[in-house]
């Protein structure tokens, strides 16, 4: 069993999803819910040995599984994790449980299909994080579009069709060019789809530049980076709460993960050469998108733009080429996973009661929902990057790293501490404080036990990571340092 931990991590949620799907019509909805919860918990439990058995002293791949899959193309079923991907797998398995619980009462229509879509997607995302074979990665990477397309399109808001198409086609456009790069690499590396072999393949500058651009499009759309970010606010606004949580907390991370697993190690020379491009786009995301977030009237849209700004920090950190920046970026990824999930759940809580996401429909919430307001406060502060919350750690590390490279990078990046606080706290003020203007708010009830559980778990994560981030950085450290050393070497022939 212990040799197949990663297979379990990938396949347990998928099999659970298929079982949930088999419960069929909404008459069996309770069964589908409990089965989904059991499946997601089991998925989390089988992932736990990754954390307990992880060797933090090596950057080599661990828990490796390798078997021939398509010998004609030399494709292997090859899984493994290092310090970069392991925390992301755990984050994903953990988030899946939250999503299942979050959709418990809200989703009353086609429950089995809803739960199954999330479970199957969870398995596919774990696959993308653990795949060490290019084609295997691509299958998981694209495969996850199908359930997400259905989640947005079936259970989403009024403009869901537009959002689902936009999301799907944007992502597909990027990844198809990446596929061409994969096949090109296959021939350059002498007939291998192995990602670690690709890390060692020498490539000319022209090839590296073209591939860099193809990869940048593929992962940049997913992250998403300015200016290919426009699908995200649409998808977030239209997606059901669970969909938004998974989108923000997990799928965006797949894009950022792609930078570390593909772009930087495979085309290091082009990455150095074109770092200015990514840094510029990241700083635009941080500063400009922060301003865009300020004027949003829809809470989900606001958090969506805030996600883009926070992910800008991640890509900025990666292209500073120092360990602090990389670790900061990775910490920021995990932290953003917790914070954005929590904020979307908060908005979901309000939306379930009032069926509105408009800031102007709220006001004075604290009078009716004090417990909720307290949790919401914590997550809003974390989003603004308040010290002692997880949001602070990553941003601070990236800003420190940026100062080492160029003061002005750090200067622009640091504006986020102002903008972030401005848009988050201003929204919080308008929603929670003040007098009750909307008569519907008068009749709101505070969060129930299920919702409190979700909030409390996430609050613990946000605070825990903010106060003591060392376990996270310990796991990453060796992998980051070794990968950075690898990226420092030229691959020109």
């Amino acid at each position, binding site marked *: 069993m212990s040799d197949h931990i990663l297979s379990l991590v990938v396949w347990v949620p998928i099999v659970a999803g298929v079982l949930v799907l088999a419960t069929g019509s909404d008459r069996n909805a309770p069964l589908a819910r409990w089965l989904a919860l059991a499946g997601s918990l089991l998925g989390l439990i089988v992932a736990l040995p990754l954390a307990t058995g992880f060797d933090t002293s090596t950057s080599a791949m661990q828990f490796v599984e390798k078997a021939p899959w398509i*010998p004609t*193309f030399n494709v292997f079923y090859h899984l493994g994790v290092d310090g970069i991907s392991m925390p992301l797998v755990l984050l994903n398995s953990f988030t899946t449980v939250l999503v299942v619980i979050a959709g418990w009462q809200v989703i009353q229509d086609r429950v089995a299909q809803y739960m199954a879509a999330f479970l199957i997607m969870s398995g596919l995302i774990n696959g993308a994080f653990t795949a060490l074979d290019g084609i295997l990665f*691509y299958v998981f990477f*694209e*495969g996850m579009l*199908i359930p997400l397309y259905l989640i947005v399109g079936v259970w989403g808001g009024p403009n869901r069709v537009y959002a689902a198409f936009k999301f799907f086609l944007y992502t597909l456009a990027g990844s198809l060019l990446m596929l061409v790069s994969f*096949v*090109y690499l296959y021939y350059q590396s002498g007939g291998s789809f192995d990602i670690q072999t690709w890390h060692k393949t020498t490539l000319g500058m022209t090839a590296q530049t073209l591939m860099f651009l193809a990869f940048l499009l593929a992962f940049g759309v997913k992250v998403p980076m300015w200016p290919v970010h426009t699908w995200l606010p649409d998808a977030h606004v239209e997606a059901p709460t669970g969909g938004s949580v998974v989108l923000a907390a997990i799928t965006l991370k797949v894009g950022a993960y792609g930078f570390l697993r593909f772009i930087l190690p495979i085309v290091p020379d082009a990455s150095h050469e074109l770092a200015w491009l990514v840094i510029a786009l990241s700083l635009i995301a941080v500063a400009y998108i922060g301003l865009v977030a300020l004027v949003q009237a829809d809470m989900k849209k606001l958090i969506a733009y805030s996600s883009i700004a926070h992910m800008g920090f991640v890509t900025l950190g990666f292209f500073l080429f120092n360990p602090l920046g990389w670790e900061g970026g990775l910490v920021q990824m995990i932290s953003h996973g917790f914070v954005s999930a929590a904020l979307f759940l908060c908005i979901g809580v309000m939306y379930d009661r009032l069926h509105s996401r408009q800031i102007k429909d709220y006001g004075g919430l604290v009078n009716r929902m004090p417990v909720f307001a307290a949790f919401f406060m914590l997550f809003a502060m974390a989003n603004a990057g308040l010290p002692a919350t997880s949001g602070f750690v990553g941003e601070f590390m990236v800003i420190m790293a940026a100062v080492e490279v160029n003061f002005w990078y750090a200067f622009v990046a640091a504006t986020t501490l102002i903008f972030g606080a401005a848009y988050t706290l201003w929204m919080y003020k308008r929603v929670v404080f003040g007098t009750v203007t909307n008569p519907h708010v008068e009749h709101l009830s505070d969060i129930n036990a299920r919702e409190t559980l979700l909030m409390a778990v996430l609050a613990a994560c946000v605070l825990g990571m903010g106060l003591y981030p060392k376990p996270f950085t310990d796991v990453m450290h060796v992998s980051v340092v070794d990968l950075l050393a690898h990226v420092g070497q030229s691959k020109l022939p």
Partner: protein
Amino acid sequence: MSLMSFAPALPEIFMLAMVSLILVITAAVDDNRRSIVYVLSLLTLAGAAFLTLLDLSAVPVLALGGLFVDDLLGDVLKLFLYLTTAVVLVYSRDYLKLRGLYKGEFFVLALFALLGMMVMVSASHFLTLYLGLELLSLSLYAMVALQRDSAVATEAAMKYFVLGALASGMLLYGMSMVYGVTGSLALADIAQNLADGTDLRIPLVFGIVFIVAGLAFKLGAVPFHMWVPDVYHGAPTAMTLFIGSAPKIAAFAFVLRILGQGLESQVAEWRDMLVILAVLSMAVGNFAAIAQSNLKRMFAYSTISHMGFMLLGILAGTQNGYGSAMFYVLVYALMSLGGFGMILLLSRAGFEADQLDDFRGLNRRSPWLAFVMLLLMFSMAGIPPTVGFYAKLSVLQSVIEIGYVWLAVAAVVFSLVGAFYYLRIVKLMYFDEPHDTTSVVSSPDARLLMSANGLAVLALGILPQPLMAVCVHAVGTSL
């Protein structure tokens, strides 16, 4: 010539004998006992499959004075032809019954067409190639026109016939030029002659142009695609199902035999032509498909684009490329069967289910069939983990292998365009509410087969190796 020298063609001979028998029986039984013909047709297919399996050839055997070759490529393709035809018969039974088309003629024509295809895939000579092609084509013209009182069907048959005859003429003209240059009609001799070099470059190139144009007509590649949407749309859906599946496999073999075997050494001449055909087909097919509101017409344009993709594999001119094209065409046949089969399954008496809107809200009416259709659509769009992805991957790989990276980029851009209209079907089925809430009634065998068809798309997507290995092996031992 001893009797034994006919042995390699035993499946064809068996098929001919059985079709003749069925023709006689058809005349004798009345409409109430038509099922005899149906069962007999399926048994014939099983028998032919048995005979083909009995004599799988590891090395190519030339027979009948060099007119006919029995090789693994032919055997494998024939097995898929039997399978495809059998699936067509099962899917279309109810549809034909409800429309008064459940007649002996349908079965006889389908089996004659199949015989033509069998001859095509095993031909090693221009004459046999042409004979097989004409037997197929004439049967198909008649099949399209089988619904005599339908004006659209008759019009479609007429268009098909006129354009098909034109294409055959071009093909023959090109073949005659190649004959003039090489002095032979046998593919092996032609290949030998051309490999030795010839002074007659101009007539040869002209001949190749005409041959490629004729082949493009038969495949339905742009700019020779005009007949495809009209015929697919006008023909009764059961006929469209047949035209859209098995003949594509035979057409692949036809192209491979002529270009890959006979004109192998002239790859530099025909590659550029195929590049143009492929790019145009992918572009026109995918863009035009977006504008369609009729599903059969949409699939017709999607077929055009898929044939463009298949040509990518052939134009590589390598064993890898031919293998990937073969994989592509088999996968395409599987998806096409499912797509048209779904229209048949959803149609009722007096209701064709061939408008896009007829799929609206299918997830409410029949979640399982909607899921099967979802798999088929994502497979056609080339999204993993369905088998359509590997089909696209393998042809992309073969064009990048010969250094045509730009062509691969163009291909993926067009497949992105294509993804849009496949997604639209999924959107109609899942995101929209049904107009008509009648539950879907279909015979259990067709439904079971449809499930198998959809799951095969998924299963081959998770484990594509067996089929891929068969294709590579078949091409490797036969060329």
